């Protein structure tokens, strides 16, 4: 297991460099001089020159990348052009809100997805099966920002049950979490269904049935446990996607997370914040995927051997 962990962590080194490389190049892809962009429209030539020197923008691109990596390692990602506060402080301040929303969403999605998938598989070709899969198809196809607006319309505007925007208690979390988690619930439901259908046909499940065990015990005690192995991977991956995919949901519900900060910073051309937010979310995504991989190796020993 230790060798598996070490191998996976080593394999992340090029990925980490790639992620930093892409976030570094965002500033250089933008039209115009990066130093001028960072200095803002009202900056004098001296200010621009100072920034160029401070961030090594007068040096060759590869050297600049080296300086960028060094700065990132020291937690220095520049200063926000809008607030003049350190970028890292700005982004970290928003992180708990994003983490909270993604965590609640993945929990909701997992519960609903698992239930839908189990019901569909254990009643294959019944109305429950078709019904669950049609709901899953609709969920996968609908834009999450539209679903967010529709939820807001019915549950906030018409019924007044939940607040429409902002972050506060649990009531503020309900609509954004459902909106963000719906697509993941559908993915988990589909995966649970196909995985369970595969396991249900295995010999040991037939044996359990032949022993005279009730269908309930056969499904929940014998089949679901094994069927869950690939589903757990999907859940973990969905968590990674939710952490990064909350950009739209956060914008709809004015949720003060990293995604909304990213969008606001794009509007304001606050590139250092955009860079840092993208880097943070991407590194997060990579780390969550690593954890999922390791968890998968732990619960499924065959992966370790391979």
């Amino acid at each position, binding site marked *: 297991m230790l060798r598996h962990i070490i191998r996976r962590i080593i394999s992340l080194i*090029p*990925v980490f*460099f*790639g*992620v930093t*490389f*892409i*976030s570094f*190049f*965002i*500033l250089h*892809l*933008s*039209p115009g001089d990066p130093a001028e962009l960072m200095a803002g429209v009202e900056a004098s030539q001296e200010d621009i020159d100072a920034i160029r020197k401070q961030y090594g923008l007068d040096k060759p691109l590869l050297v600049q990348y080296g300086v960028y990596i060094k700065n990132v390692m020291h937690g220095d990602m520049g200063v926000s052009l809008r607030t003049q506060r350190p970028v890292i402080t700005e982004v970290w301040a928003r992180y708990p809100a994003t983490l909270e929303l993604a965590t609640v969403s993945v929990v909701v999605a997992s519960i609903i997805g698992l239930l839908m998938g189990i019901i569909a598989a254990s009643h294959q070709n019944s109305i429950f099966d078709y019904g669950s899969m049609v709901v899953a*198809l*609709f969920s*996968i*196809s*609908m*834009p*999450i*920002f*539209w*679903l967010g*607006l*529709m939820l*807001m*319309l019915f549950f906030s*505007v018409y019924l007044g049950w939940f607040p429409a925007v902002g972050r506060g208690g649990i009531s503020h979390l309900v609509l954004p979490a459902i909106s963000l988690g719906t697509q993941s619930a559908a993915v988990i439901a589909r995966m649970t269904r196909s995985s369970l259908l595969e396991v249900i046909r295995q010999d040991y499940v037939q044996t359990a049935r032949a022993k005279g065990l009730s269908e309930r015990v056969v499904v929940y005690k014998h089949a679901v446990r094994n069927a869950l192995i690939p589903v757990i991977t999907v859940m973990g991956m969905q968590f*990674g*996607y939710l952490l*990064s*995919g909350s*950009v*739209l949901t956060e*914008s*709809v519900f004015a949720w003060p997370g990293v995604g909304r900060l*990213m*969008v606001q910073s*794009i*509007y304001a051309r606050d590139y250092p914040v*955009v860079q840092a937010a*993208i880097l943070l*979310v*991407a590194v997060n*995504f*990579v780390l969550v*995927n690593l954890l999922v991989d390791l968890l998968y190796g732990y619960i499924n020993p065959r992966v370790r051997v391979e």
Partner: protein
Amino acid sequence: MRNSKNKGESLLRIAASQLLKNKGAVFGGVIVFVFIVSAVFAPFIAPYDPLDSNLEDALQGHSLKHWLGTDEQGRDILSRIIYGSRMSLSIGVIAVLISNAFGVLLGLVAGYVGGKTDNVIMRIMDILMAFPGMLLALAIVSALGPGIFNLMIAIGTYSIPIFARVVRGSVLTVREMEYVESARAIGQSHFLIVLKHILPNCVGPILVLSTLRIATAILTGAGLSFLGLGPQPPAPEWGAMLSSGRTYLRIAPWVATYPGLAIMFVVMGFNVFGDGLRDALDPRLKT
């Protein structure tokens, strides 16, 4: 030669008949066809000009004059949705063509050449895949600036590694086939081997993946337009229409509702049709 052509034709016929037997695929195909027809014949179908504003008719509900109501500028929502299908379909199709152009080429080179070239290409693809699609698209479009072409480039880029992987996988299987070895033995150039023997065998998976990725591209494109990073107003783009409609959600919910339904149905159409196509052409991809 004639036999192999006939065999090719009959395989195509088998796939087509399987596709037609699949009710879901037919349903998806019909939805996609309806949207394609409305995109192509928009000027003949749409009752009004999508940019024609009339403030006297602003935010009107359903009526015989305006079936789906009007927006804040008094523009006919149905007409804007019909014209909007042009934009959404072009974003989806062109983005996927961009992914295809690069992804297929990289996958072919990686799979056929193998060794270090394969290793380098696939590690770069791994890095691109380490980025969640939406985030990568957002990063690119934030750097290039808003607009329909930048949006297509941004969305097209994030699917490149997916195409490269699938094509590479197919090439690895086909590369070892006897007929490829025979072509090599008679001294055919690598370029011709790839073009005549390897690429045609990858067409199935590429077609299936393209159909499914068009759905994702339309959804992502609408999302980025919703954030104001796609086509700019007054262009009739569904995501942008939804975005402007959210301001009037309380007093005129239809402004935001119908463009969302249009996105959902076209995405569903491509998803279901793509699933059917996969079952007919390449059942292995199902896993």
